[in-house]
């Protein structure tokens, strides 16, 4: 049931319009928006499968050519890698935390749950990073 039809029925239930008026309004809506067959609605955007990193660097002065990097990593691989982090024993995480703290990076890895990382990967769909420089160009996106 679409929103307009619901509003009309609400108005009818509240007694703001009569049954005849409601019928006329619904008919008018149907004329404006012919009923689409089931499954022919708005198609959901296909979910991206790969994370791409593309970099094109121009020739440096004195260099012997341009540099190009083209990386395609399946998002499923990132998810599998994230799941592997759940196998890291807690004592190892404690030691990593201590080393990170010693290096001036006070991040508590024990607070980072695999579910949160998976959500992060799920949200990568709309990620797009474009870095344009006169000589270099870098793009990070999902496709």
């Amino acid at each position, binding site marked *: 049931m679409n929103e307009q039809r619901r509003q009309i029925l609400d108005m009818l239930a509240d007694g703001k319009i009569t049954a005849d008026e409601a019928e006329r309004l619904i008919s008018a809506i149907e004329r404006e928006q012919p009923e689409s067959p089931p499954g022919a609605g708005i198609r959901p955007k296909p979910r991206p499968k790969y994370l791409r990193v593309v970099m094109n660097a121009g020739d440096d002065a004195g260099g012997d*050519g341009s*540099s190009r990097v083209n990386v*395609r990593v399946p998002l499923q*691989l990132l998810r599998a*890698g994230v799941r592997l982090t759940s196998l890291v024993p807690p004592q190892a995480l404690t030691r990593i935390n201590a080393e990170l703290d010693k290096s001036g990076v006070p991040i508590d890895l024990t607070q980072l749950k695999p579910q949160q990382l998976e959500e992060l990967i799920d949200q990568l769909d709309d990620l797009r990073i474009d870095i344009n420089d006169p000589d270099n160009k870098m793009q990070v996106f999902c496709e």
Partner: protein
Amino acid sequence: MIPYLVTYRQRRRNGRWLRLYIPVLPALLVLSPLLLLAGLVGLVACLAFRISPAGALRGAGQLLCALPGTRFEIQDGRTAVLVSVR
């Protein structure tokens, strides 16, 4: 599904290409004695570091199954390396 072909291509400084096509399943079969040994070492390591061997095996399997579609292409001047997993 596990990967079935790994392609490695390398362009050397003289411009010639080295191409390697590695069929994964036959390579795994050939290397199976070594894999068995590696599996035993992995099992001991899991027990030593108190990691669930089943979880580690599942994780490694998921990682392997997620590999198809991976592609690394790096070119620097006349040198280029391409690794593709299908």
